[in-house]
């Protein structure tokens, strides 16, 4: 019986011009937006590559300087190119594009694109993923609710029930038909996504095999989301007494899912787990660096102990007699402690980010869109976890570069050498290896997003359960 219902529903949907017009219009809009985003991504990609080469060349050709002065000139690393970021930029608009790597200090990424944006982005960034997550559900709700309300308003529900058709079979058939239409409509979207992600310049074949499973996972996740939305639309249509009332309830639900719950959850997360201000954060690092972390002696004591150790090690009476570069050696000790202090505070900051994220996940109870956004960003490689992975890799590189330079200085000098003397030439700068970043695997993305996936699945199940309840209460 369900097969018969599904066939009839598919026929009705196929003959409904409004469905085709709406679907095609939205698809066209999405395609235009995606193509524009892709173009911009490629331009940025090219710019990053060029700027990366230029800043590296500036580093390589600093000329003869004191090695520490050269180190302070610093290097820049740039956010990696993520093939799927044109689809879902995730946190990318809100994090800095460039990280300055310098001695003694770990910096935050700077120049986030959102700071340069206008007032309208406060309503939402119009990106392809937002269209799929935020606006397409409206279309699905509008489609689904009318499938239920029209049966009552046209009087056909009474006739169907009199023929012995169960409400559950009827609604299940409608849901399957809608799901089939969704697959038909969204298949081109993800096909385009997959093809464009693989054919981007600079994407090697090896990367393409890493991208295809991601695109397939994205397709599955979005379809799960839409299934839940469709079930919800049908359920509300069946439970409501009139078309307009049903549509209004669905619009309210949509506004809660897409606009209200995420904002409210974000505000509550910020209030419950407040971040320190920038001034407080950096001041705390400066304080702990000078005074020592809890349980550690202060920096001056550590340096004194180191210097005393150095004298003992080389059996000399003064530091000027030490056969290695004392300033460099001292810098290694100070920077090692600076790195420890920075790691302590940055880890604490990221822990707070994660606490806020956990609170946000709780809000998924009120909005499947929150769970979808988290999953989508993770699968696209643009989530907070991916940003942390990159920043940790950049930090490791920074430490390695500065350690290498200080070790070179230590090995090539003796005693205390003035910072005004210049003896490191271009060969020193050029000996620093380039930064190569390997993005994490799909497994990493799934591991970071599994709570969101679980919540999304729970939402879909809950929507089906509501559909079951609506079937029992559906009266002509």
């Amino acid at each position, binding site marked *: 019986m369900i097969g018969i219902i599904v066939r009839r529903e598919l026929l009705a949907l196929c003959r409904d011009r409004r469905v085709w017009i709406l679907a095609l219009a939205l698809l066209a809009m999405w395609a235009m937006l995606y193509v524009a985003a892709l173009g911009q991504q490629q331009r940025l990609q090219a*710019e990053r590559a060029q700027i990366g080469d230029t800043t590296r060349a500036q580093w390589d050709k600093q000329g003869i300087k004191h090695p520490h002065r050269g180190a302070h000139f610093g290097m820049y690393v740039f956010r990696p190119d993520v093939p799927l970021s044109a689809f879902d930029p995730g*946190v990318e608009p809100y994090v800095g594009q460039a990280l300055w790597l310098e001695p003694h200090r770990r910096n935050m990424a700077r120049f986030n694109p959102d700071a340069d944006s206008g007032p309208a982005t406060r309503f939402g960034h119009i990106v392809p993923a937002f269209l799929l997550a935020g606006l397409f559900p409206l279309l699905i709700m509008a489609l689904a609710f009318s499938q239920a309300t029209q049966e009552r308003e046209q009087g056909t529900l009474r006739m169907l029930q009199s023929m012995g058709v169960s409400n559950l079979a009827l609604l299940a058939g409608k849901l399957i038909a809608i799901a089939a239409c969704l697959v038909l409509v969204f298949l081109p979207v993800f096909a385009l996504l997959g093809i464009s992600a693989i054919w981007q310049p600079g994407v090697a074949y090896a990367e393409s095999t890493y991208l295809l499973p991601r695109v397939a996972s994205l397709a599955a996740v979005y379809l799960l989301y839409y299934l839940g939305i469709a079930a919800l639309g049908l359920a509300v249509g069946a439970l409501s007494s009139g078309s307009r009332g049903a549509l209004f309830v669905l619009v309210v639900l949509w506004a809660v899912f897409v606009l209200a719950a995420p904002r409210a959850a974000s505000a509550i997360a910020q209030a419950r787990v407040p971040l320190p201000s920038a001034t407080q954060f950096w001041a705390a690092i400066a304080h702990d660096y000078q005074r020592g972390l809890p349980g550690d002696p202060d920096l001056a004591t550590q340096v004194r102990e180191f210097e005393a150790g150095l004298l003992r090690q080389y059996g000399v009476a003064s530091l000027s007699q030490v056969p290695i570069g004392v300033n460099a050696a001292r810098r290694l000790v100070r920077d090692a402690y600076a790195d420890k202090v920075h790691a302590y505070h940055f880890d604490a900051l990221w822990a707070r980010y994660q606490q806020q994220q956990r609170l*946000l996940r709780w809000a998924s109870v009120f909005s499947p869109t929150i769970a979808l956004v988290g999953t989508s960003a993770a699968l696209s490689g643009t989530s907070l976890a991916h940003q942390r992975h990159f920043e940790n890799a950049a930090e490791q590189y920074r430490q390695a570069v500065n350690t290498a330079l200080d070790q070179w200085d230590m090995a090539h000098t003796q005693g205390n050498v003035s910072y005004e003397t210049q003896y490191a030439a271009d060969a020193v700068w050029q000996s620093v290896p380039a930064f190569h970043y390997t993005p994490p695997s799909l497994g990493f993305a799934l591991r970071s997003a599994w709570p969101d996936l679980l919540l999304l699945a729970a939402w879909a199940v809950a929507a089906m359960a509501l559909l079951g309840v609506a079937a029992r209460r559906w009266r002509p």
Partner: protein
Amino acid sequence: MRLVFWAEWLRFRRSRANLCILLAYCITLALCALWSAHGAHQLRAANAQEAATRVALIQQARDSQDSVQVRAQASGRVSSPVSGQASANANATTDPKRAAMQAFSLGRSMAGQAQLPPGPGLALSLSPHHTLTTRIAVSVESRHADGRRSDTLNNPMLAQYRALDLAAVVALLMPLVAIGWCAGTVQEDRERGIWRTLCAQAARPWQPLHAALAIRAAALWLPAALACGLAMAGSAGTTTGSGVLWWTLCLAAYAGFWVALCGALARLPISSAAALLTGLTAWLLLTFAVPAGLEAMAAARHPMPSRLASIVELRQAQQDAEVRMPELLKAWYADHPESAPRISGGHTWPVNFLPRFAYQDDLVRPLMRRFDQKRLAQAAFLERWAWLSPPMALLQVSDYLAGISAAHHTAFLDAVDQYEQAWRNFFVPRVMSYRGLTADDYAHIPRFQGVAPASAAPVPSLLGMLLLVTAALMALLLGFRRRIGRD
């Protein structure tokens, strides 16, 4: 007409659905207003705390210098001061390098805080205060490469969910409620069969429709005006009068716009559900699509320079300044004979760095200010075309009232540049001359004088645009009135 208003008011208040929507609307606005007022209060408190930190840093530096002086006196390296003025002006330390370092330490500390003062409408637009740079610590060092002195700290994952700004909530929520109350009501009455009776009863069938729209407009406007007014007054104190008035007027125009737009849908020969969807489509277009299009046009007209390319230019300036350090140092002393150094022999860090930083900033500052100029130009473009998107126009008004518009921010950055110059004019000679700071100097350390008030002209202009588009829609409604009742 009064009787018609009474009749429509009876119909409005007896509908459980209308009352539920009104209650939910009022509760949402009230909660958001409370949250915003609290947030605004916290921000002002944080600003005050930062200002206190500044004072504390200066006091700390002063105390540290005093204790050095006492130790120096105790060890006999300096004689005790004998008379007031002479002692106040004398720097007790005999070590010029230490004096220079002390002055340098204070000059590069966070004591040189400049804060953008929030406007009376802070509760309306809080999130830009956390996104944009509103606190900058000037320094004798170059601050443009170092984000610690100016950048804010935010969780980017939360930023992508946007903010619970009161103005944004009103801009999003009010149209949705208007659509729920007004869109498709005539079609629904027609579908139910009530419309013919209504048209037969009323000599002027347009009167009940317009009365219903007016009542709904008032029901939209009053709670929003109250919530926002209380939030503004509660968070800003006594200077909010004109801000509240402007905002209230803008809200009235905004409510009128959406109600008139939904009222115009009554003429369409479509079902009530289709009318609701049409209203929703209009909302989506005006709230998301049109602003995005306008911002794209603004960006095309006034393209923002590349931040990444500016890094290259910044590093070029850094390298250039470093290479020219010796000549810059020599030139500085030649230009400032009054600040001749108290020591003989070579200069080291930080003394030999200061002229380099000044030179570097002379090259870098115009690069960095390009971004603000472009942002200002883009904002001016958006203001000119704001009438195409009333939600965006409302946000722009709220930004002006909150003191965080592009104009305000640019004026703030101009003031910071001036303050930085004054800060350097104070500290750099004291470092370069190895004179350091005397006890008297601490009282004259430059403070940030605030920002020259940005022009308030855009607010009436934006309000005028809102009123104009609303009036146009109302004229359309009035033009259609004779055709209402032709069933």
